Structures are given as structure tokens and as C-alpha cells.
């Protein structure tokens, strides 16, 4: 269960930073990105997938949250 930080880049794309692995990757896919539901499975540019417990609203980014490998 690593902590990941999701951030919105200047060009609007999401990026994910995993402090434990000191790894920064672009987010290529996110399961839920709606006004009332945000999160779920996210896929990074290097092919790894993580699961973030879906939130009931859009989070204020950047935000550090718990994720687990999906």
C-alpha cells in the first residue's frame, strides 16, 4: 500500500509520483473521472496499475493518497 501523489501537470495531464520508489510517471488511464466519482484503477505510462479507493468528489490536486497494486 504505497502512498502516491497525483498531480495535474501544466498541460492538464495527470501524473503520479510514488515516493517509496522515487518514481514519477504519467497517468495514461483513470477509471472514474467524473464530478461525483474519482479514482479507481489508474494505469501508468510504464504499464503498472494501481487502485485508489474511489472518492465521492473531484480531489484538490496535488494530493497524496493510499493506493494498492491492481
Amino acid at each position, binding site marked *: 500500500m504505497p502512498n502516491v501523489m497525483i498531480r495535474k501537470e501544466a498541460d492538464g495531464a495527470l501524473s503520479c509520483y510514488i515516493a517509496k520508489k*522515487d518514481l514519477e510517471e504519467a497517468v495514461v488511464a483513470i477509471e472514474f473521472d467524473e464530478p461525483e466519482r474519482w479514482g479507481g484503477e489508474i494505469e501508468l505510462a*510504464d504499464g503498472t496499475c494501481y487502485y485508489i479507493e474511489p472518492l465521492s468528489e473531484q480531489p484538490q490536486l496535488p494530493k497524496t493518497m493510499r493506493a494498492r497494486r491492481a
Partner: protein
Amino acid sequence: MSMDKAETQALISEVLEVYPDKAKKDRQKHLTANDTDAAGKKCVTANRKSLPGVMTARGCAYAGSKGVVWGPIKDMIHISHGPVGCGQYSRAGRRNYYTGTTGVNSFGTMNFTSDFQERDIVFGGDKKLSTIVDEIETLFPLHKGISIQSECPVGLIGDDIEAVAKVKGKEIGKTIVPVRCEGFRGVSQSLGHHIANDTLRDYVLDKSEEKEIETTPYDVAIIGDYNIGGDAWSSRILLEEIGLRVVAQWSGDGTIAELENGPKVKLNLIHCYRSMNYISRHMEEKYGVPWMEYNLFGPTKCEESLRKIAAFFDETIQAKAEEVIAKYRQQWEPIVAKYKPLLEGKKVMLYVGGLRPRHVIGAYEDLGMEIVGTGYEFAHNDDYTKTIPEVKDATLIYDDVTGYELEKFAEQLKPDLIGAGVKEKYIFQKMGVPFRQMHSWDYSGPYHGFDGFAIFARDMDMTLNNPCWDKLTAPWKKPAVEEAMVVNG
């Protein structure tokens, strides 16, 4: 001469030929020919453990924390906690300039160490550490805080430096920061940067939250500029000229009071992303301070960065930025006119730390020089992603290159100039290749900003066109034909 991808790949395979299969497979992942079409995709494997048995130029976590991030903070005393060598051999080598009176209110070039002996390894060094804090308090009462930089044995014997820091900090009423940056942690100095950033967060920022300062809408902080040869100063004047107020310098010529002001700024400007992105991320998330990367190497990048920074603020700043750009254009155009004819078309190979292999490319290109190979000692994947658009297609890219590989690449690519660290310097000079030490500017600098570019151009010309490179063959070993010509002529 530029190579195509197949030729670069062939060169990589040729160089890797000598390795055993397993090592070859591993090293293969760290070397590549640049593919500009693949921007945003994975380029090379980075931030992995170096191969046992090869010569690597990497440093350790202690180097990343004490040498890079904490060391330049001038009004704090940084204790190299452990045996004497780590502190002594890295003392003042990075040339982080500062103003102040050394030994009175600034301590940058001094070496404080607990000088571990056998007895301290056996019985623990905590008592010694408390004594040191007392001695520092008596001898240097004007210091503003202490950081304890652990060397390997401290972690191995399990000393509790946090407890000492807590007790003594309360006693003397100053900030004492225990930094767990033992050299064996991580694969390179990169983890040391991370650990140092985390301690800055926990022991400096978290404790200064109630602090109030007078703010203006134009407050910025320079982050990740270590004032090597005066770099931060030549950057700072540009930012001040466009109307911004530089509140803090992290950490070149910086003070602990400046760091505590950090979260109150409007924008964090990051120069060395690799070593200080951690604290910038933290400030963005916790205090809502946005950050922006910038690059002040070479006039093209300077102008680009000043415009980018100004775009974040209002029109008065943007107008002033244009004025500053116009003013300095008169200063740098004659420099390019003077040095470009002397340096045009020359090939450069770079191998530096975590930022310069991509940041200095603009400065070389402004002088008409070409980058034929570049690579980092301790970069992560995101650094390579940012490098791809900066260099031409098929340029050789190497991560944590070994001594053998770098030598072979230089033999084949025949660069006119190599920019790397002091460990490579004398090898290449003995090979007859002009060399600049690009970590601390070969005792020169600053290289940042428009003022720095003038020095950069002069230094590159001085090195590359030095008459000594023609004198490498002894007169009696020169071919006889030449001699006959001299006699006849």
C-alpha cells in the same frame, strides 16, 4: 558528422562486447540512441544499482545530503557524524559560495566531525555527539542551528541521533536536525537528496508554520541552486531585475531563516529538479505554493525562462522581463559573435549529475556546438523523458556509464570536448581530449544567467582552443616529414 540510429546502436553493441552475458544484458538497458519520436515513452532504465566490478562515478547518500542539500546552508553547522574522512575529503570541494565571516556567523567551508574511533563504534557515539553540540555552542555561539549528517557506521551500530538532537535542541534552544543519510542507503546520492528534503520538511518547515513575514505579490524562492561559483547570485539579479522579490535561496548562500520563509512565497522556482523536487511537491500540496522549472544556461534558455516566469505574474513583470531581455541582448550578442566562429561545429560529450546533461545543452548550442552524447550519473526515468526533446535524434544516451564504456565511447565518437566530473577529468586529459569539469565549473563560474554565459563561452574557448593539445607528441616522436618541411621552409 552525425550518426544515425543504426550506427549508434552498433557502437553500443561493440562496446558491450567485452562484458560477460549477464552484465551485457544489464548494461544494455542503460544505453540507447535517442529517438525523438518516442518522446514521453520509456527511454533507458535509470536509478538502478551499479553493476559490481565496474567503475562508477556515483556518490553516496551522505554526499547527496551533506554535500548537496544541507551543506550550503551557511549559518548552520553540519556535523559529519562518523569517521573523519567523509567530511574532510568533501570539505568545500563543491565551491558553494556565500557571504559572511567564516567561523563567526557562516560555516560553509569548515569541517565539523565527530571523528569516530574504535571506542565509539564499540560503545556508541551518542555521548560524543552531545559533547560536540556543547562545544559548538561554546565556540561558535552565533550559529543558527545544527544538522547531524550520519555516515555509514552510525547506521550500522544503531546510534539514536534523533534522541540526542531532541534533548540537546531543547537545551540550547536551536534547531538540531538529525539526518539519516548513511552512505549505504540507496543506489546513488539521489536518495541522499530525498532524505535531506524529508528532514527539511519535518524539522524546518513543520516547525516554522506560525512564523509570519511581510509578503508582496512578487515573492519567489530559488530552489535547487547551490551557488556554485556564484551561480545563484547571477540568477538572482535577473529575477530581481524583472521585479520579483527573492525571499529564499535553497540552499546556496541560504540561511535557515530563509528556508523557514519558504512556504510563504507565491512561486517556487526550481533549477535542480532532481535534488529538490521533493520539497517543492510538499510545499505545493501542503501550502499551495506552485512550482516551476527554469533553466538559466545560455541566452536562448535564459530568455525563454524569464518569459515563462514572467507569464506567471502580471503585465508589469512581463514588460520588465522584455526590457531586461533587450538590455542583456546587447551584452550577449557580441559574446556569441566573438566565440561562435571559434567553437562552431565542435562536438561535445556530457556526463554529469542529475540536471546539467540536459540543462547546459542550450548554452552549447548557442555557441554553435553539437552534443554527440549525454548521460546522467543518478537521474531517474523522468529526467530522461525530459532529455529526449533536448537532443538530436540518434544522439548517444548513457545512464550511470562505467569508466570503460565512457572511454570507449569517447574513442569512437571523437568529441572535441568532454564535460564530466573530476573522476573523469585526468583520464581524458591524458588521452588528449579537452575537458571541462562540469560539476563545479573547473574552479571557474558562475555559468548561470547572461553574466555567466560570458564566462562559460570564454572557458569553453580557453579549453578547446588551448595550444597545449597540439603539443601532446614529443618533438622527437613527430614524423620526420614535418621536420624536413620546417628545415626547408
